[in-house]
């Protein structure tokens, strides 16, 4: 429900990174989204498309890298996936675990095209 705010934060983060790189156009933005990030990728995609339209990022595509939910066990030290939303160690059953992955919500990388390449492709 708050994907519009997250899309704005995404646009700002990418634009900040581009300040030092004039002449580059963003083709693809790779975003890592954890299974338990609380974000709908469809809603984020749609919000980004609308909100980026009047910016230099218009036309850039989001590619989502979905990160599975896993736990690191403080008792046995092993990592295991979370199944059926039961947050207990899948190896030893301990309740003393912490989320090892699955809460990610970050821009990882950008695929850039030089403006000269874009012009060339148009010809």
């Amino acid at each position, binding site marked *: 429900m708050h994907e519009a705010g997250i899309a704005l*934060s995404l646009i700002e983060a990418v634009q900040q990174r581009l300040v030092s790189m004039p002449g580059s156009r963003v083709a693809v933005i790779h975003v890592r989204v954890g299974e338990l990030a609380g974000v709908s990728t469809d809603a984020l995609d749609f919000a980004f498309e609308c909100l980026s339209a009047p910016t230099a990022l218009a036309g850039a595509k989001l590619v989502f890298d979905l990160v599975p939910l896993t736990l690191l066990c403080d008792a046995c030290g092993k990592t295991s996936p979370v199944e059926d939303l039961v947050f207990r160690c899948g190896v030893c059953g301990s309740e003393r675990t912490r989320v090892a992955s699955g809460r990610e919500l970050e821009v990882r990388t950008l695929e850039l095209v030089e403006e000269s390449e874009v012009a060339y492709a148009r010809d």
Partner: protein
Amino acid sequence: MHEIDVKAGLLAPNDAVAAENRHLLAERGLYAVNVMSAPGSGKTSLLERVLPMLAERHRVGVIEGDIVGSADKERLDRFGGPVFQINTGAACHLDARMVHHVLHHLTEDGCEVAVIENVGNLVCPAEFDLGEDDAVMLLSVTEGHDKPKKYPLMFRRADLVIINKVDLLAHTDFSLPAAVAAVRDVHPGVAILSTSCRTGEGIEEVVAWLERRIASKRAAPLAAPAGQGR
């Protein structure tokens, strides 16, 4: 075509302000609790019961978050301490920036306890750390015992889960054991209490839980960021 690294967390702007809030709370010895639930679970009714009891021993301030209006603020004004209304406009949750200035007011007012009533919503508030010491969430009997597994993030985030409206248990198919088991699956070890804000059942236990947390904050002022490892 070439690729460059960014590695920017998309909640980083909120998390940075939440960290500032956390430092302010630690420095000024203010304990803050963020109360969250779906709309109509009984947050305001719980606070009507709890605030006068906390106010016997502490200077308590309230931050009331609503999309529009001040009906809840008017209900809570009766307890006598300062109540600040935040209207989020369209936003479905409070964020760290919205509460930042009010926390300053509360510290200047000499408050020792800040009670933040978040916007009624079981989804969005879970993502936004306010810098609070504890998160308390309510699940009411009329919502159904299956909710912990439908909204896991909120239940992971909570330090205390309160099952409210237990006076209605006899009139619904809500299973208290099933609800407790679902909460424990999603968040093993979390504190669980049950209350009825109509009859007053369980209210003293909630106040006792808060008093223990206020006391432990005095012993160790800087709280860990909410939801870390959750």
